[in-house]
């Protein structure tokens, strides 16, 4: 049982550390600030979780988020119709990738690694240097300040609830997860594995788009490299949240908690620990390794 509580425990641990280092951070304003970037990270983690549910991996999600950001800060503001078409088309590209990976039996790591350069290149074409501006409605949405509970927390709860219902409670969600658990059994029962793979990749595309838009709503302008770190963060978030690389074992609630943990551990915690910014990226990687190693140790002991 310890294993299913692990994501929540690691989040609690990070929160306790922050509260101990800087008690004033535990406040409405503090959380709004610290969890500022948690929404796009959570959305990207959910996106990654869908492909992992089908035993695949998306190494392009980071540059895809950057590409979506560039589209959001340019076309979506200046020519909304064109912007919407491009974003929907990019979800379609994801669906096609899923079909290609299934039909040609290609390793998703290779395909998505290739695609990461395609997205990056297109992002640079759209926005050769940082700039652009988020659409006003998006800025207004992301700046929303509800009473009592900071917006990022409400958004995280909402994302977790919606995806949990869709993937864990609906009858087709069972089929999607089953395709990662035992695809041969699914095929024998008469389900199309092509369709499940397309659905999972399209959902990844959809949440990648939402992540990119949310990110630009917070940062207000875009940069072609803005999402590059998200590939690693999203994979780590899924695994930290109790997911596994193979076997269709994923948890949307866990993934969101994992994303929040990483968002907090990434920068606020390190800043409070007085670690200079130059070392924060390296420290980030070290925290990831420690947390994931602890997870493996605990789940192995349970077995």
């Amino acid at each position, binding site marked *: 049982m310890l294993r299913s509580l692990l994501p929540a425990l690691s989040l609690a641990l990070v929160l306790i550390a922050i509260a101990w280092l800087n008690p004033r951070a535990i406040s409405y304003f503090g959380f709004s600030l610290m969890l500022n970037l948690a929404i796009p990270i959570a959305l990207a983690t959910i996106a990654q979780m869908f492909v992992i549910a089908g035993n695949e991996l998306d190494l392009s999600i980071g540059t895809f988020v950057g590409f979506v950001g560039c589209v959001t800060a340019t076309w979506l503001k200046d020519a909304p119709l064109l912007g919407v078409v491009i974003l929907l088309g990019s979800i379609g590209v994801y669906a096609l990738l899923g079909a290609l990976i299934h039909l040609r039996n290609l390793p998703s790591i290779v395909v998505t690694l290739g695609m990461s350069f395609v997205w990056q290149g297109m992002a640079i074409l759209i926005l050769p240097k940082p700039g652009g501006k988020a659409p006003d409605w998006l800025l207004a949405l992301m700046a929303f300040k509800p009473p009592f509970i900071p917006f990022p927390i409400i958004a995280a709860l909402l994302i977790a609830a919606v995806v949990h219902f869709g993937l864990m409670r609906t*009858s087709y969600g069972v089929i999607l997860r089953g395709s990662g*658990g*035992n695809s041969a059994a699914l095929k024998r*029962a008469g389900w199309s594995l092509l369709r499940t793979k397309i659905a999972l990749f399209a959902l990844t595309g959809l949440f990648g788009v939402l992540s990119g838009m949310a990110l630009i709503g917070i940062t207000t302008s875009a940069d072609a490299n803005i999402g590059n770190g998200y590939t690693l963060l999203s994979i780590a978030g899924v695994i930290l949240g109790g997911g596994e690389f193979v076997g269709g074992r994923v948890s949307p609630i866990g993934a969101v908690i994992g994303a929040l943990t990483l968002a907090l551990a990434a920068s606020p915690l390190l800043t409070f620990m007085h670690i200079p910014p130059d070392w924060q990226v390296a420290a980030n990687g070290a925290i990831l390794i420690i947390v994931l190693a602890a997870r493996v140790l605990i789940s192995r002991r349970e077995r």
Partner: protein
Amino acid sequence: MPEANADIIMPDGAEKLFGAVSLDIIRLDGAEKHFGAVRALAGVDFSVRAGECVGLVGHNGAGKSTLMHMVAGTLAPDSGQIAVRGGVEASYSVPRAQQLGIRCVFQELSLCPNLSVAENTRINHASLHGFGWRRKAADLIAAKLDEIFPGHSISASDIVGDLSITSRQMVEVARAFTVTQEPLELVILDEPTSSLDAHTAGQLLAFVRRFIAAGKSCILISHVLGEVLGNADRIVVMRDGKVVAAGQADAFDRDSLVTAMGGAEAREKTAAEIASGKPEPGLLRVRARPARQQDGNELVARAGEIIGLAGLAGHGQTDLLLAIFAAASRAKTGIEVTAPVALVAGDRQSDGIFPQWSIAENIGIRSLARLRNGLLISPQREAELAELWQRKIGIRTPDMNNNIFSLSGGNQQKALFARALGSDAKIVLMDDPMRGVDIGTKLEVYDLVREEARHGRTFLWYTTETEELDNCDHIYVFKNGRIVANLRRDELTEEKIIQSSFGDAA
């Protein structure tokens, strides 16, 4: 009930004597299937009637599974036709089989381990969707589990991966009998009791009899002959992709089934002449006890001996070979190994061959220490070793520096033998290495193995082909990961091996 004339054991075509076509749930005529050069099914006629339980028995690779995959729609026959209730099915498939009420519980478990019991039930029922589907699925599977296995302790919300293998098999069986929109006419049970204990197996078989009494049909495949004899109305025996005997169950007994499976005709034995020139058994080389062995049985191999590991496929033979291999480099309890070991892999594509390397490099890899010249591998010594074994084992190639894939399958396997025999290993483990190798190559390798044994090497030889055991001095028969019989060559008959591998004692 089948006609009275059915109680004679007959060769091919016996099914044709059975009842009117319209009574058949399913009928296959002249079904054939080839996998590459292997003929898995050679024109089989097979039928199941309403209200009948057909028992299907046969040794490994007899074609039972292939035949059942055709009935379930997961494999299409290369030639021959399939008819359901008298109507010929032109494009028979899984959805079509389900529509017609034909289900299958496959031998390898087909549940999703990451899903709950109720969710796994949903996978087999497209109609379980919409509001409240979870409740419906849970009720459906719980009711069926209660009906088949009263007193079970499985909850519909349990995650399958957390269940014991026994519970998983119970869920799998119960799921096959759940009904929503599609009808249920025929259930194929492929080794349904392999993971069940005696009590739950009894519950299942009692349920199957009730199911048959209600006018439904069943195909029962089991290696426990008593189950088949006690529960089937009619028994079909397969061997080498053909139906070799069929008849009413009460016309068979254990011995006649074993005879039919093994082939009654006497095989000529190559063994006698080799036995004469045999030196006295030498030093102890291997003493091993399988991890799951509970009694005192253990495997003992001495210098100069060829030891056969027999029994049904996947009953712990490979595991023991790998354990011995591991014990050679790191001490392990229960296994004693006194000399260097080499392994000849059975699955040469995944476990044996380095695909990018030449034939000579593939042979030399086990002997690098001897081929070394300072820090580097001496190409000259590598070539010498390769040429020696090319001559000795007869690898047919113009140049040993060619890529290993330039060889035919049989010659690739010879190269793997050369790798093991050319090394310093005194013990050679063979993991069913002759799979898919032509008979000419086989005979050459048999000769070589016997010659090497005369020179003091020890061979542990797992094989699924009973003929190969004639080359062995001593045969251990495996069942469920344990040694269940220990035969000297002069005691060896195919019947004895089958008798032990199919032993009803669990």
